[in-house]
């Protein structure tokens, strides 16, 4: 009995506990899969694949120097268009160029009084390098660069997504973050069917330490890619071309930031004629990144590209047509006199500013370029030989006493001076011819201006006004001293040209092409 009461009491005591317990608690918590943490200690930072040394080619060989202008090769670097880089970043490139006995010059614009415009600088440059421009180029500058390439110069344009002139520090991305680098660079590249895209390439799985540092292993069969296995570009624009060569392209998993798709985007493109190269990254050229993977070899190939053009020199490059000290050849006609000395002294000053010596000599010697002056009826036999070699027909040899100049055709020599340029292995020779001694002196004065002002230049030939022509008083048909023939306005009188008939009257005949 008593025992029963004890059990009852115990039960009654436990009853509220059980009721309350079950009212609130329906089981025991056990962590489902256990608490599993990442193994942080095994995480390591990726290291770059470094090469021991850069593939910098040795000093220029005799063969290389033989093809180079004796005055030396010059690579001109643009710093006049808001270029977002420092020259010191190109140390390895400039060292490699110096090792090949190439001079590096900087174009800072023509704002200073003694500064030469771009066109003048390109006359003697071997290559023109434009990096990360953020100021637009003028139309004339684009034309000058295009002509430069057409005549054998090499153009290298580099744009980099991180060099768009925007300095966004401490996450401060306020305002428009679109820079001008792509637009400016594309101005230069447009004539060559190359265009940068305003994007950057990235790869989230195969990269060099960060998603925007892409590893590239897809190369075209091109000298620029010679000896390359893998290179690393550090945030690179993609580049488009229809007719050019995509030398280096991204592979699988390399996306464009614009499309977030992988389509084998190019980061290095060469123009169809091979004279223009566009690169989408600058950082790979700088230290220490030029030691990663095959970047050093690419740098060496880049130097080969810059020095690989064969510059054609003609009179439009005056005064940079000479590579050696210049000697003016005196003759019976053109000797030292008060007038000739005054003319030549001006030329000497102009040449000296270009690091060229100008002397006067009776006998040409080796190691000098020559300037020869004579009349349209040459006194000097040497001049006659040179003229014939240049396919120039002098008035004395012409039935109609005209001067025939390649690129110009037949011209009335009255009041004109002729300049003609010839190159040989030994020297460069500039021939000046005119109708009279006075005209010849006037023509020689143009040597001092440095730019052949007042002359019409066609390749190796130039015609300059040095005296009074027979234009308005010419007895030849057509007026203006032009004989009938190709290029003349046949059937049109001088009177009609000056006072054209009013509409409704007899229409003017169409000029023959």
């Amino acid at each position, binding site marked *: 009995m008593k025992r029963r009461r004890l059990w009852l*009491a115990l039960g009654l005591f436990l009853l509220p506990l059980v009721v309350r317990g079950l009212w609130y608690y329906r089981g025991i918590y056990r962590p489902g899969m256990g608490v599993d943490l990442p193994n942080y200690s095994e995480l390591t930072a990726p290291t770059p694949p470094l090469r021991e040394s850069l593939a910098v080619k040795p000093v220029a060989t005799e063969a290389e120097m033989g093809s180079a202008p004796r005055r030396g090769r010059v690579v001109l670097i643009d710093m006049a268009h808001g270029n977002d880089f420092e020259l010191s970043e190109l140390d390895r490139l400039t060292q490699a160029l110096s090792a090949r006995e190439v001079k590096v010059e900087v174009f800072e614009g023509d704002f200073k009084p003694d500064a030469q415009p771009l066109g003048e600088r390109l006359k003697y440059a071997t290559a023109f390098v434009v990096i990360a421009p953020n100021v637009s180029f003028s139309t004339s500058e684009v034309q000058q660069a295009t002509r430069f390439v057409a005549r054998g110069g090499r153009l290298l344009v580099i744009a980099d997504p991180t060099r768009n002139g925007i300095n966004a520090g401490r996450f401060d991305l306020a305002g428009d973050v679109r820079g001008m680098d792509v637009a400016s660079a594309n101005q230069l590249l447009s004539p060559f069917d190359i265009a940068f895209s305003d994007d950057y390439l990235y790869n989230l799985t195969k990269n060099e330490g960060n998603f925007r540092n892409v590893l590239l292993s897809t190369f075209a069969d091109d000298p620029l890619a010679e000896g390359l296995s893998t290179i690393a570009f550090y945030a690179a624009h993609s580049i488009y071309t229809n007719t050019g060569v995509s030398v280096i392209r991204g592979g699988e998993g390399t996306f464009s930031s614009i499309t977030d798709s992988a389509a084998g985007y190019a980061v290095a493109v060469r123009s169809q004629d091979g004279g223009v190269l566009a690169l989408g990254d600058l950082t790979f050229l700088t230290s220490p990144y030029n030691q990663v993977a095959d970047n050093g070899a690419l740098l060496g190939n880049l130097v080969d590209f810059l020095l690989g053009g064969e510059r054609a020199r003609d009179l439009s490059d005056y005064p940079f047509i000479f590579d050696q000290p210049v000697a003016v050849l005196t003759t019976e006609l053109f000797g030292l006199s008060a007038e000739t000395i005054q003319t030549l002294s001006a030329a000497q000053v102009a040449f000296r500013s270009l690091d060229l010596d100008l002397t006067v000599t009776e006998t040409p010697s080796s190691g000098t370029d020559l300037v020869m002056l004579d009349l349209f009826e040459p006194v000097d036999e040497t001049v006659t030989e040179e003229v014939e070699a240049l396919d120039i027909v002098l008035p004395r040899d012409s039935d109609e006493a005209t001067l025939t100049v390649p690129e110009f055709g037949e011209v009335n020599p009255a009041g004109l001076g002729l300049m003609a340029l010839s190159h040989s292995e030994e020297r460069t020779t500039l021939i000046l011819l005119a109708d009279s001694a006075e005209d010849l002196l006037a023509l020689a004065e143009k040597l001092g201006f440095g730019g052949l002002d007042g002359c019409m230049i066609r390749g190796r030939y130039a015609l300059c006004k040095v005296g009074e022509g027979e234009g308005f008083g010419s007895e030849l048909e057509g007026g203006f001293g032009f004989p009938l023939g190709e290029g003349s306005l046949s059937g049109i009188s001088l009177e009609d040209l000056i006072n054209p008939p009013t509409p409704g009257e007899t229409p003017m005949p169409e000029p023959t092409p």
Partner: protein
Amino acid sequence: MNEGQRPSPALRLGWIVLPLILGVLAASLIPRPVVGLIYLNDAIHAFSARDMIDQIRFAHREPEVRAVVLVLDSPGGTVSDTEAVYLELARLRSAKPVVTMVQGMAASGAYYLSVGTELIIAGPSSQIGNVGVISELPPYPLVLEDLISTGPYKIFGAPRDTQLRRMETIKQGFYRAVLKGRGDKLEIEAETLLRGEIWPGSEARRLGLVDELGSLSLAVEQAARLAHVANYQVEDLRELADLPPAINAPFFVETEQGVITPYPRRPGYYLLYIPPPERRSP
């Protein structure tokens, strides 16, 4: 007592009532379970992290707290503070279930915290993701006339390139935490996840970044279910722990005009979402 004598009615009642009363009194010692709420409505920085850790430790040691709901509306914050809270949450989870409710945003470091919980519930339009690291590189090393140090990186902390590569390490840690926390639930490729995108809750659900779409009530119910408790009470752990009010320390830059911009005040590594700024008027 003789066999013929029976206990009095009072005594019989005593045998019933007294144990019952004692049992009721003993039962009152059984605490009503609490589902605790820990709010994060700020970036993850030293003060907010310490605040959260205090609440986590309170939840861990107090027996009546049976489950925790982490209520997030945060763009993330510093790497070190995020990892500190993440590890404390892992310790708590070994004893009690933790559920995340995303009310607004769980970006970057905030999402890092959420993958360390058993369940993630989000609003349909809440912002989820931004997996990745952000940092400002130190300047190029230079020497100054009057500021002298004993090593090239004493002042700058690390070479620029090394700082960039270390970000990959932190990113990998973040990514592995996501893999550990989400496991087979993830329906997204690594490449896509690591792009750093932010997804709305509905899409995050489809990608396996969150478990359910719902409200705080649902999160509380789920936490209670995991903890096997019923008829619980829901409490803000800050109040329950009698902690001081949250310290409003400025984490972001404040301009001269008093505008708080979403840029951290000092350089470093961040698991942080920085929204694009407003365009300035021309």
